[in-house]
């Protein structure tokens, strides 16, 4: 079977299907049924198609790369398997990593994880631009991670399309938006926007899948921005609401900040390495020869895929020396190249180019910070909940915000320990801050939003401490249960028409399905399970993260704070999740009016809940025989990242322990127990406060008034940013405008005034002298015309006369002048 050509086809189609539906709805949306009712079907059909294709690709993948239990000495076999693929893959102009690291290579390093090379297929569909070394292309880079993410995203998207086609039915007819108060005191009355919603949703799916399949950073960036704009559309779906439009703009602008960093990263990479492709690409030269991609540049196969500053960066950093040598050997370029090549090693050891690599990593991470709402830039995500709930579920919990984590995971091989540390610290901070804010939030969706932020923090931290598969594993599981939770909240809101948990309570009786599935979600997110036996999906991913954090903090005691952050985060998570659940479903209704009108949601909304909850339960399981997400991920582990990596550059001596070390008994057990106890404690506390009411929340709040208000005001982050960014900007702006109005305008006005005077004089000249001349000519012509027009009598016969006379005269003249000629 020929994966190299099959996978890109399947996934490519899966990627393009939503685009088709987007275009279709864009042009024919309003004409699709009554108020565009069928737009939902179009979009859903498209996404279902993608799901089917992704599953097909998944199956293809599994048949080619059977998922086996990752026992740490079975890699060699796996490698052989991949190598085999790699070669038939090569015959089909697709390039695996083994392409430049020969087969035998792996046989030697078979035992070592450093040499394990993931099966990955890459290639280009279409080259947008090729200039110099810059090659922008629409290409693919497909490995186990891509395939898995495709399945996850399309699956969740499918559920949410189905769910939304029920949830958005208000938009099918004219809508009166009670949250918009017009100047006349009335409410806004507008036509429904059903098709537009699904149109944006389809575009989003297309962009998201684009990020997943992207074969190079430029393409990633393009779809990154596309995703951003989709999120802008969707958050601002009710753009008449001030809050919604501001939230949309906020999200967009904040993301721009991150993307700026990402651009810096891109420039650093391209300027120094001249390529943005992940994998090796066919060189311009003879066929079969390849130009190394980012991965093999940073982790060359010759050095057993160990991370090193690539030559390009070294040269770039030491440009002066390089140019000097080049100038010296201008006559013999060959020698110059050799000398440079020979000296690169020393330069590298002298540390040239490390900054560049660091900046590149951090830059790319900046983008992820923006997109995944990490610590400095997380403020946009809670506001993003202004969008319709399905959007929150799909875009702002499951997929888009996960894109940041995904990108870090994809870009992992290029990240140095220092960058990883930065990532981990940022993740830790985010996780803690968000969790604390979630403690006191009363808006059900905001609680979920902050929990999303903190979970993303978890993932970042996991990646930062070297838990590559742990982080991505959590990404997947989280996608399932977080979208589940959002959909549940959506169904609650749908029932109560309010987001405020203080008005809810006791809904479990009226909407059992929602309550049940949401309970599943909560259990999953806190990682509930019977230790060492079985658990929900969150149980496995969280354990992995804790374990890795533990082993990291053991490796670098000075950073053990990270482990505590994780553990504390687990406690907080458990607390606020169950606070949410208890306040919503348990106890007695606080607002009977709402409770009486509450009702279970229609099946079209319940079915996705059930489907997602099932996955939220089983997603983490590893079947006997080793089939499971964790092991599937292992297939995609970037070359060389399985090994312990230590380095000392900025933050002293750092060691990123190999992930499999965290499976050692000691660490594993400790981590699991910690997780269990913290989570249990959190649940217990929540139950005491909100279920059994042993401790009164109000009392707690009053006791810790300052902290409470501090948290309730979300650490005053918005105010902070307001103070340090917005205000100064306003100040500067007002200053600038003042200058503009006071000085520049004055100046310009003055110039204009003088110019006007001059023009007046000029006009006088023009009017009196020039025009006088012209008018005189015109008048003369006019009069001449008046005279001549008498000649035009309209008498045909006179004209004939004139012609004849003219001809005769001409003849006579001609024969007088050219007598000789006529005489022939």
């Amino acid at each position: 079977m020929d994966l190299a050509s099959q996978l890109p086809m399947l996934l490519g189609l899966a990627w393009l299907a939503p685009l088709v539906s987007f275009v279709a709805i864009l042009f024919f949306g309003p004409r699709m049924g009554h108020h565009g009712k069928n737009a939902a079907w179009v979009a859903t059909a498209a996404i279902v198609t993608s799901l089917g294709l992704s599953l097909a690709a998944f199956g293809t993948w599994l048949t080619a790369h059977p998922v086996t239990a990752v026992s740490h000495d079975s890699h060699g076999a796996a490698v052989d398997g991949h190598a085999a693929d790699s070669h038939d893959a090569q015959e089909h102009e697709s390039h695996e990593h083994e392409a430049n690291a020969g087969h035998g290579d792996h046989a030697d390093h078979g035992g070592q994880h450093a040499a394990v090379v993931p099966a990955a297929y890459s290639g280009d569909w279409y080259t947008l631009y090729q200039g110099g070394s810059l090659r922008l292309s629409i290409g693919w880079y497909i490995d186990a991670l891509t395939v898995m993410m495709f399945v996850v995203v399309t699956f969740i998207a499918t559920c949410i399309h189905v769910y939304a086609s029920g949830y958005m039915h208000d938009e099918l007819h004219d809508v009166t938006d009670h949250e918009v108060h017009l100047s006349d005191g009335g409410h806004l009355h507008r036509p429904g926007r059903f098709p537009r919603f699904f149109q944006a949703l389809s575009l989003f799916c297309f962009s998201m899948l684009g990020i997943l399949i992207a074969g190079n950073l430029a393409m990633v960036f393009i779809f990154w921005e596309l995703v951003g704009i989709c999120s802008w559309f969707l958050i601002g779906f009710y753009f008449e609401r001030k809050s919604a439009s501001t939230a949309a703009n906020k999200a967009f602008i904040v993301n721009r900040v991150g993307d700026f960093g990402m651009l810096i990263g891109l420039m650093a990479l391209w300027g120094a390495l001249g390529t943005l492709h992940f994998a090796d690409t066919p060189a311009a030269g003879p066929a079969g020869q390849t130009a190394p991609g980012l991965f093999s540049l940073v982790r060359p196969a010759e050095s057993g895929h160990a991370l090193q500053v690539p030559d390009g960066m070294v040269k770039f950093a030491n440009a002066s020396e390089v140019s000097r040598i080049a100038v010296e050997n201008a006559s013999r370029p060959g020698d110059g190249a050799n000398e440079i090549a020979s000296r690169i090693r020393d330069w590298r050891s002298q540390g040239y180019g490390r900054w560049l690599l660091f900046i590149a990593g951090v830059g790319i991470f900046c983008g992820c910070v923006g997109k995944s709402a990490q610590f400095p830039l997380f403020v946009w995500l809670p506001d993003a909940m202004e969008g319709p709930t399905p959007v929150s579920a799909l875009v702002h919990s499951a997929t888009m915000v996960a894109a940041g984590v995904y990108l870090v995971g994809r870009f992992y091989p290029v990240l140095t320990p220092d960058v990883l540390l930065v990532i981990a610290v940022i993740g830790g901070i985010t996780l803690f801050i968000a969790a604390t804010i979630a403690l006191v939030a009363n808006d059900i969706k905001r609680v979920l939003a902050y929990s999303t932020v903190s979970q993303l923090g978890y993932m970042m931290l996991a990646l930062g401490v070297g838990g590559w598969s742990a982080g991505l594993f959590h990404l997947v599981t989280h996608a399932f249960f977080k979208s589940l939770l959002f959909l549940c909240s959506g169904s609650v809101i749908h029932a109560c028409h309010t987001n405020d948990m203080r008005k809810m309570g006791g809904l479990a009786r009226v909407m059992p399905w929602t309550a049940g599935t949401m309970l599943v979600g909560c259990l999953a997110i806190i990682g509930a399970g019977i230790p060492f036996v079985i658990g929900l999906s969150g149980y496995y991913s969280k354990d992995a993260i804790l374990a890795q954090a533990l082993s990291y903090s053991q490796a670098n005691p000075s950073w053990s704070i990270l482990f505590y952050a994780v553990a504390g985060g687990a406690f907080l998570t458990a607390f606020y999740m169950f606070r949410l659940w208890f306040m919503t479903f348990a106890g007695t209704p606080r607002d009977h009016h709402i409770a009486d009108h509450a009702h279970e949601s229609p099946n079209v909304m319940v079915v996705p809940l059930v489907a997602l909850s099932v996955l939220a339960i089983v997603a983490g399981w590893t079947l006997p025989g080793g089939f499971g997400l964790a092991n599937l991920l292992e297939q995609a582990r970037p070359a060389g990242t399985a090994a312990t990596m230590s380095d000392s550059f900025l933050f002293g001596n750092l060691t990123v322990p190999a992930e499999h070390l965290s499976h050692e008994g000691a660490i594993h057990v400790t981590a699991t127990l910690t997780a269990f106890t913290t989570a249990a404690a959190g649940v217990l506390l929540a139950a005491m406060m909100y279920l059994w009411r042993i401790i009164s929340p109000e009392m707690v709040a009053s006791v810790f008034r300052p902290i409470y208000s501090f948290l309730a005001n979300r650490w005053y982050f918005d105010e902070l940013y307001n103070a340090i960014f917005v205000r100064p900007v306003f100040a500067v702006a007002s200053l600038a405008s003042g200058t503009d109005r006071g000085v520049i305008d004055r100046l310009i006005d003055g110039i204009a005034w003088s110019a006007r005077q001059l023009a007046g004089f000029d006009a006088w000249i023009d009017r009196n002298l020039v025009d006088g001349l012209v008018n005189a000519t015109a008048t003369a012509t006019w009069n001449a015309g008046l005279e001549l027009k008498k000649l035009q009598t309209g008498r045909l016969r006179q004209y004939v006369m004139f012609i004849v006379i003219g001809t005769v005269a001409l003849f006579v003249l001609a024969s007088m002048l050219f007598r000789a000629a006529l005489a022939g």
Partner: protein
Amino acid sequence: MIMSLLASALPMSGLLAALPVAAVNWHSVLFLLFAAVACACAVAVVLADNVVRMAFYLVLSLAATAGLFFLAGAEFVGAMQLMIYVGGTLVLLVFGVMLTAQAPFVAIKTSTGDRVLAGMVGAALLAVLLQAAFRVEPWRRPAMAAVAAPAATPIGMALLGVRVDEPVAGAPPAAVRSGYLLPFEIVSVHLLVVLVGAAYLARAKRRRTPRAIDVAASSVGPVVTAREAARSSASALVSGGQ
């Protein structure tokens, strides 16, 4: 026609018998005949006032010209002249009758001044043309009177784009493509267009309200719609030529 003219040429040749002419060149005699008819009728066209007679003289003149063409060995052109030109003028005549058989239009007099002026100008033009005709010496030389090959087929071939009359050394005539195929096609399309256009222009218009141009015309004469025009020309037919 040639025969009849031959017959009518008899008395003239009788006159010639008196002249000291060695051998009468019949070609020249017939040329004289046709030329005389053509020119005389042309002048008659100018002098006549009655439209119908003008047309009549015109037809005679054209027919005589056709005879000249025959004499010049251009039989095809001559026949063409007879068929199309004379036929076309025939239609011209019919329309002339239909339109202007009304008493006022049969003869529209021209002012004497115009006549004199036109005569002078015409004389000047004629003088110029004649001296132009005579000045080129080789044209005045007596003809070698070579016998021409029949020109019908080469003309046809030339219209099809093959010049068999101008053979290029070595090349088969079919390869010589300096012919008139394109003009031929263009002319045929042109004729079609002209037919359509003429039909369109001449179609009877039914107008409720008189247009501005009619008001303008009403200063000249009564507003006449197509139907009235038809009626008046019918009455003209009744009233005949008087």
